């Protein structure tokens, strides 16, 4: 109410700001009034004679109030509190008297502009320092991403493989997914981009961090029956599905003691004999050491993750079989309770005929 009043006088009063302050910040002023006499003086001024100005104001105030009451009377006959609150809120956002957004003067916007500009400068400086301390090639800490997680392909937002052998529509998307995924493993591409490095040992490339690193070939043909080269349906059409397993990339990760990580699958729960045979490609069912270590995507551009294909050649049909595939090896953890993708992966096969 009062604020409005003051503002109404703004145009005619060059020092309206100062004036408004007098009233709003009485406390501040009195703060300074050390002499009690001063305080007393003020008390008198306030109490005793009404100066003309004040009287004027009173009148205006009354006018305002009347107006408001009228408005309310028309709009909301009962004087709804919500209505008032809405008014206050809208006043806060847009002060029609002073034509000011958020009831603020330009000054405060300016202050905030400079304030935020400085703050932005500070955060920029901090981030700059941060990037100075962080290598673009090797992450500072890798302990959170270790031990490696495991993922399978085909992947369609579900770990249940339900399909009917006689109905290609039910498995076609797996085939497409696998084909897409294996494009990067095409023999021609691999031969062109990557080197054929000796198997059974780490492919260590010393040198500066920022030097480009070579990558070892992992050819699609390594996957034999599951490469999709001989059987373009990856065995789905015969009820012997191929599922590819890959280990998550971790910069600098090396399987311990030169012992390659192996993959082994079995029925997770239920009858062991539900899966009578699985074939692994490469036959060792392991990730060859030559694919390690990984040097990070900036320098190790063409790095190709090694794969292990599981070919479920004889699985009980017309029944959901839970399968757990685990990594086995020194330093591999595959039994974290609350993360079911570390060192293992669980999925179900439900092949209908």
């Amino acid at each position, binding site marked *: 109410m*009062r604020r409005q009043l003051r503002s109404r006088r703004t145009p005619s009063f060059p020092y309206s700001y100062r004036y408004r302050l007098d*009233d709003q*910040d*009485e*406390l*501040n*002023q*009195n*703060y300074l*009034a*050390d002499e*009690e006499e001063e*305080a*007393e003086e*003020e*008390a*008198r001024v306030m*109490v*005793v*004679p009404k100066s003309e100005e004040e009287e004027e104001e009173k009148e205006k105030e009354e006018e305002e109030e009347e107006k408001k009451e009228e408005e309310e009377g028309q709009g909301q006959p*009962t*004087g709804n*509190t919500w209505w*008032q*609150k809405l008014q*206050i809120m809208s006043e806060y*956002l847009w002060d029609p008297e002073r034509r000011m957004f958020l009831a603020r003067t330009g*000054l405060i916007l300016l202050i905030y502009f400079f*304030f*935020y500009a400085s*703050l932005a400068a500070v*955060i920029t400086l*901090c*981030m700059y320092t*941060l990037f100075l301390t*962080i290598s673009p*090639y090797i*992450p*500072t*800490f*890798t302990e*959170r*991403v270790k031990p490696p*997680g495991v*993922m399978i392909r085909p*992947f369609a937002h579900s*770990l249940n493989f339900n399909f009917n052998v006689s109905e290609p529509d039910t498995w076609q998307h797996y085939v497409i997914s696998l084909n897409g995924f294996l494009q990067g493993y095409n023999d021609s591409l691999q031969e062109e981009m990557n080197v054929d490095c000796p198997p059974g040992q780490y492919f260590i490339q010393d040198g500066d961090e920022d030097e480009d690193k070579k990558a070892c070939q992992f050819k699609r043909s390594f996957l034999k029956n599951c490469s999709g080269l001989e059987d373009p349906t990856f065995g789905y059409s015969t009820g012997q599905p191929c599922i590819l397993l890959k280990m*998550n*990339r*971790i*910069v600098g990760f090396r399987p311990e003691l030169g012992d390659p990580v192996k993959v082994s699958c079995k029925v997770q729960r239920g009858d062991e004999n539900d899966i009578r045979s699985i074939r692994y490609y490469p036959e060792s069912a392991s990730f060859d050491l030559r694919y390690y270590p*990984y040097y*990070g*995507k*900036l320098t*190790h551009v063409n790095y190709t993750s090694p794969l292990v294909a599981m070919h479920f050649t004889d699985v009980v049909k017309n029944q959901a079989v839970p399968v757990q595939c685990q990594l086995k090896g020194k330093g591999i953890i595959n039994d*974290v309770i609350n*993360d079911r*993708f*570390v060192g293992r992966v669980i999925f179900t096969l439900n092949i209908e005929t």
Partner: protein
Amino acid sequence: MELGWKKGAAAPQGQNPRQIPIKGPKPSKKKMKRKKKKRDTEELKKEVVMDDHKLTLEELSTKYSVNLTTGHSHQRAKEILIRDGPNTLTPPPTTPEWVKFCKQLFGGFSLLLWTGAILCFVAYGIQIYFNEEPAKDNLYLSIVLTVVVVITGCFSYYQEAKSSKIMESFKNMVPQQALVIREGEKMQINVQDVVLGDLVEIKGGDRIPADLRLISARGCKVDNSSLTGESEPQSRSTDFTHENPLETRNICFFSTNCVEGTARGIVIATGDSTVMGRIASLTSGLEVGQTPIAAEIEHFIRLITVVAVFLGVTFFVLSLLLGYGWLEAIIFLIGIIVANVPEGLLATVTVCLTLTAKRMAKKNCLVKNLEAVETLGSTSIICSDKTGTLTQNRMIVAHMWFDETVYEVDTSEEQTGKTFANNSDTWFILAQIAGLCNRADFKPNQETLPIAKRATTGDASESALLKFIEQSYSSVAEMRKKNPKVAEIPFNSTNKYQMSIHFREDGSQTHVLMMKGAPERILEFCSTFLLHGQEYSMDNELKEDFQNAYLELGGLGERVLGFCFLNLPSSFSKGFPFNTDEMNFPMDNLCFVGLISMIDPPRTTVPDAVNKCRSAGIKVIMVTGDHPITAEAIAKRVGIISENTETAEEVAARLRIPVSKVNPRDAKAIVVHGSQLKDLHSEQLDQILRNHTEIVFARTSPQQKLIIVEGCQRLGAIVAVTGDGVNDSPALKKADIGIAMGISGSDVSKQAADMILLDDNFASIVTGVEEGRLIFDNLKKSIMYTLTSNIPEITPFLVFIILGVPLPLGTITILCIDLGTDMVPAISLAYESAESDIMKRRPRNPKMDKLVNRRLISMAYGQIGMIQAVAGFFTYFVIMAENGFRPIDLLGIRLYWEDKFLNDLEDSYGQQWTYEQRKVVEFTCQTAFFVTIVLVQWADLIVSKTRRNSVFQQGMRNKILIFGILEETFLAAFLSYTPGMDVALRMYPLKISWWFCALPYSILIFVYDEIRKLLIRQRPGGWVERETYY
């Protein structure tokens, strides 16, 4: 009276000032209420009209169908008891406990939290409905909010319940028994069993058990001070002396004290229908407005709501524009609104107020209603009762006039040693007369007490003389032993003197006649006067001197007594049978000795306290039932009327013009008589209250006290009323803060009040004002501190929505801040000492100076909070980057990040993360964000300590605050490093280096705010102050 009681019960609103009345009630309702209040006041006036005092004994006997010698039969008494109910003051209608509890549970701030809880629950419901496995955050939040509200509600309920229990114990301090005559037998019964028509016997020291019409009395005096405010005992007889039942001699009132003598009376009213009971009913029928702090909190809630809704809606629209679904957007909306609710603030405010209440209780201000703690700080007018609050409530010798000189006597409370010493012979004689011609005596067995503290028999003036002589001259008992009294004419209102004849055993073996009484009467008896021990014959010069002295002392509001004596000739030898009826002795040509004047002196601490109130911008108005002259005199002595201001009468006397021609602006002081007040319109009263800075209301009735309070409130003042009597209780209730006296106060006044001065000392009010102002300032700081951390709590969610980064701060961590680490530091600010002399400030203007204003929000949200948020994000980005996710790659990662089936999400280095692995990183970030907030809150806490001064000026003496800093840090470390926390709260241990990310920002906050305060100090009124001083 049944009616009156029901009316009281019909307005239970008045009972709880905490309740926030609905804004802008319908005009018709308002009118009705006003009407009802008027009717109540009318009712009280009307009911005082009774006719029992006019009736003869026979008429009384028939009216109450009781035998005036044997009383009721037991059977009859029992019947009446069943009919009328017990004879007790029904306590003001108390709201049932569960209603009180619910009010604590659903009032004001709690409502905000409830809304938050319900919104969260709704959000959770939506999530459940559309998503099979929703995050449980919203559910937890809603449960925690509910728990917080319930716990704080219970706490404040417990607090207030405890205060009212103290009230009950006060009540039980006075065991009340009554001696009634039933079936001709005297028997002691409980007061509540006294019934209408009972014959009651009272004696000195008793509390009167009901309204009585006396049927016989012997030297009975009653102390009606609690009812009328007059401290002087009044004599009671069977005579009908005044139309007004309050003034007539033959009625004694319920719960007043019989000081001396005995009397027998018939009960004409019991319980609530007594005069006392009616005032109590009027009191309980009054409505009381919102306390200032409740209004402030309402304003605060409004501000917070505006900010919350504004943010919520903005981001609702934004998230829709960004392509989120409706449902998600609504959940975001609710989330943002709820995130704005400061969960811990309710508890903080309650605890701060409780702490202050405790501190005030230690300083003898017992606060009944928690919110009243602050009210005293906002007070701009104090309406103080005179007797017992400003004065010591006892008569004491103040001045003497002999040897043509006025002597002043030490009237302070701690009189030790001699208060007066003089070697004049006149003084010795005066002292002897004062000691001998005096019926007062010390009660036995109190030799160890200082004289001033000993209890006496007899009326106040005689006791005052007795004590004075005992202290300044010699033992009165010895004096009396040496000069035994042989004859006496006691004081009565017709002859206005008291005479006694004593035999001088040790000296001349003669008799001496001594007399004291009204000075003009005494002078009539005298033909000579004593000057330095020599007798001179009376002359006009002395008479003029006498007149001047009498006027001077009378003008000081003192009660003046004259003293004279006559040495009887030796013809009246030992054993002469003096006969006061036949007057067989001379009683003229006495020798005038001097005057002694007495007053109920102001408490020593009061002038200073009044002065402090003055300099604190608080107007002190005296409202008393006493005579205007006494009132004015006391007002001048305590500084309510200051030395250099004059009343209109004084201006008139100085300028020698009629009072009507005095310019009202010249007379700053005014003394208003109750009879004048009766004829004033409310506009005229407003005029008086507005135009005069120093006001004394004398001879006021309970209704008028109420009118005065209402007048002050009309002017927008926050009014404190002090009082002890039942007659004050309507005003006490109506006042923004009623202050009752703990020692002399009546039950009703204590019930009506919000605060009780345990030592009855006005100076304690000043302490209360100081504490109230301090807590207001400190609450501001506390809220500033608490609100600031809201920004670093909300912004992560906003960034999560807008930039699609993993959530930097989760619900659990937010709760850990709001209800964990922030609590103790916020409360510790309540212990902060004042930045400057808060008693030199004017009281805050409740319309302008808000607890939480836009500047505070702007500082907390816009500036300090933003720095904190930046600090948090910096830490977040550091951890993310060090773990492999560079900031640029985080943008828009949200959908993949949250995908539970995506277990090979690539980071900036090409590494692949399972869902759980990256969640661990996310929660580590949240823990770090939390720790960062704790660390920047260090700086915020130190910065919030002061609003204007530098921390270096203020110092770090607040030990609780230092403890708070340590506690929050320890708690943060505990939450982060305790094994098992990863499962329980999903908080993970941090690397030491991550703790240091926040430090530059802490320093930044500190430096920034110090510079801001420096600018405020250096350029008062400059734009920095205008825009940032909260």
